[in-house]
């Protein structure tokens, strides 16, 4: 296992989980790790171009975070790509279900990826799931 590869699977639409995933991805990427993010299920709609919807919070922490000046999770994902070695892959299945094309997703996302490729890429890294 490569200690230098961090794979982050994001499937939730909760603020706390999206936030934690974005923190792991951005801090990992700016600390010299190769970071692969796989966006699927309820997480993907937040990365449709122009979507600025707030994610609903799960509990008290999320409610507090929404009130305070916590970095926005989308900004952190974008910074992971801009400042570090992070690649963010939208799940091709989720795109099909949503009916969204590559051009309809934020520009800092990579080309759509299926599970087969992502699982293969993640084989020699640590995997975090949110």
């Amino acid at each position, binding site marked *: 296992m490569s200690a230098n590869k961090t794979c982050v699977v994001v499937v939730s639409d909760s603020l706390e989980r999206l936030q934690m995933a974005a923190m792991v991805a951005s*801090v990992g990427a*700016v*600390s010299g790790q190769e970071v692969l993010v796989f966006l699927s299920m309820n997480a993907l709609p937040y990365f449709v171009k122009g979507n600025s919807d707030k994610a609903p919070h799960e509990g008290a922490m999320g409610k507090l*975070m929404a009130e305070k000046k916590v*970095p926005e999770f989308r900004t*952190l994902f974008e*910074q992971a790509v801009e400042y570090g070695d992070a690649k963010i892959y939208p799940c091709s299945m989720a795109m099909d279900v949503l009916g969204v094309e590559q051009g309809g997703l934020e520009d800092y996302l990579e080309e759509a990826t299926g599970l087969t490729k992502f699982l293969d890429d993640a084989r020699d890294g640590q995997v975090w799931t949110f």
Partner: protein
Amino acid sequence: MAEKKIVDGRGSFCPGPLMELIAALKSSEIGDELEVLSTDKGSANDIPEWVNKVGHEYIATTESDGVWHIMIRKAK
């Protein structure tokens, strides 16, 4: 000529101040000194760890009136 810069991360939470520092480092020269201002204690702990890990020079941290001042030097 080395410069001194202030990175004002006050009011933000981890990892906001760190990301602001990284943005400032990108537009700095080797040898420049950067002082991060943070009201977030987590960042005061985390930024020196990051600086040492990636190979910049950590100088010192001071705290006054709830604001941490984290001094570093760009080393690469």
